[in-house]
Every structure is written in C-alpha cells, then in structure tokens.
C-alpha cells in the first residue's frame, strides 16, 4: 500500500515537472525566430550592421524601405505576396517605431536615479530599513545640526566662508554612505551621486531659504 502511494506521489511529481517544460522550450524558440528580423530591421544608428552579402543588403534595404513615407515610387512598389504580408507588416511596424532608442535609455535611467534634494534624501533615509531607529535619530540630529550651521551662516551675512561648511557636509555624507553601503547599496549610490546636487542647494542662499 505504501509503495503504491510513493509511486503515485512520484508520478504526480513527474507530471508536474513535465508541465513546466513546454513554456521553457517555447521561450527558447521564440527569440530565435524574432532575433534576425529585429537585427535586420532596426540596426542602431550609431553602429549599423554591415550586410554580409549583396542579397542580404538588398533584403535589408527593402525591409527598411517599407517604413519611410511613400514619396515618389508608390506605383512601382512591388505587391507583396500574401504569405509575406504579416511578416512585412510586423517588421514595418517595428521599423516605424524606434524601440532600441526608446528602450535603452529607460534602463540606463533606472540605473542612475535623478539626484536627490534635501527633502527626498530625508524621506529616503527615513524609509530605509538598512539602519535602525537609534541611528536614524542620531542621523537626523546631525542633519539638523548642519542645517542650523548653514542657517547661522546665512543669518550672519558672511559671504566668503561657505566653503568652511563643506568639510562637515562631506563628513556627514561619508558617515551616511558608510552606514548604507552594505545594507542599502542602491540608496548609497543615489546619495553619492547626489552629493554635488545637494551641496549646490545648501550653498545657494536662495535655494536654501526656499528649502527651510
């Protein structure tokens, strides 16, 4: 009885494993079909792929040539065979829109977040789970102290020595980075990238006053 149960369990497990296989095979098959057309239709403008032979070059030209507006030779344009219509239509659609141009920049933009301002920095530090409550409070104290120094500097009317606050600012940024670099590297990178942007806000009296 137990052997039958084990056999049935093994059989069920095997069947469950087989169910997953077809999508994997499909997903392997699809890019193989799609890749050549994508390469032929939409080469990047910076580095166009050189055609290997004259026939291929002619094919590539004809496919790319389907995209531009029919300005002069519309009557001469050959009528595509019914079998080729869907493929050409899809390639033409791909050729009209600029997917490689529009897809790559968002990926790069995701990697490099826009620089933070002071409010965003405070919010991000408040939300991160990489540092504990005591640390957050101590950090807030130190940020408040630094802002107080800036406020005192601008209230005193001195103009020359704003650079004297650069060192405490850098020290605080370094402390924050050392706290975050292991447990929240994304935020650490964003803060490191925003260092100059935040300084430019703090060092400008008008921006600083609008901030506080």
């Amino acid at each position: 009885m137990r052997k039958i149960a084990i056999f049935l369990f093994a059989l069920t497990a095997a069947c469950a494993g087989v169910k997953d296989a077809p999508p994997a095979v499909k997903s392997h098959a699809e890019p193989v079909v799609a890749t050549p057309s994508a390469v032929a239709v939409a080469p990047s403008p910076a580095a166009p792929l050189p055609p290997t032979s004259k026939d291929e070059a002619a094919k590539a030209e004809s496919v790319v040539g389907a995209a531009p507006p029919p300005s002069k030779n519309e009557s001469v344009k050959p009528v595509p065979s019914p079998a080729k219509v869907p493929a050409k239509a899809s390639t033409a659609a791909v050729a009209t829109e600029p997917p490689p141009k529009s897809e790559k920049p968002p990926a790069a933009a995701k990697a490099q977040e826009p620089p933070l301002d002071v409010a965003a920095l405070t919010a991000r530090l408040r939300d991160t789970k990489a540092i504990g409550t005591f640390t957050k409070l101590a950090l807030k104290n130190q940020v408040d102290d630094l802002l107080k120094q800036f406020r005192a500097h601008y209230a005193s009317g001195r103009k020359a020595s704003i650079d004297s606050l650069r060192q405490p600012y850098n020290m605080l940024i370094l402390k924050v980075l050392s706290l975050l670099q292991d447990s929240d590297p994304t935020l650490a990178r964003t803060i490191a990238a925003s260092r100059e942007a935040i300084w430019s806000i703090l060092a400008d009296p008008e921006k600083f006053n609008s901030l506080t």
Partner: protein
Amino acid sequence: MNARTWASALIFPLAALFGGSSPAAEDVTLLKDLTSVIMLLGLPCGQVVSAKRQADNDHIATCKSGHRYRVFVNPEGRVVAQKQ
C-alpha cells in the same frame, strides 16, 4: 498512533510556537544599531558585542574594544552615548 504521527503532532505546534521573529534576531539588529550610533557619534568602539536594556531607548552597550557606553535618547530628542 505510530512514531511518524507523534512526530508531526509535536513538530507543528513547536513550529507555530517558535515560528515568529526570534529574540536573537532582534538582539542582532539592536547591536548593529548601537554600533552604528556609536560610530556616528565618533566614539571608539569597533563593534557592540552585548547590550543591556535599562529602559525604553536606554541601553548599556559593551564594545569589542572593552568600552562601555550608555546609549539613550535625552529629553531634547537627541541620541547620546555616555561613556561609563
């Protein structure tokens, strides 16, 4: 009831009992937090190896270097590390 049934009857309640976040994990978080605070305040410590709770937001932290600090939040809302 065979041995397997007994085992499963024991395992499930025990798992339910100890399934939550362990005090050890909370301790590690607190030690890390205290280490960070002491570092942030620029005091020598290295790493906090043990902490004894005095009250809410008030701990005695013992460092690897042998230093001991009372880390607490004062009435002004500032985190203070006082050498013991």
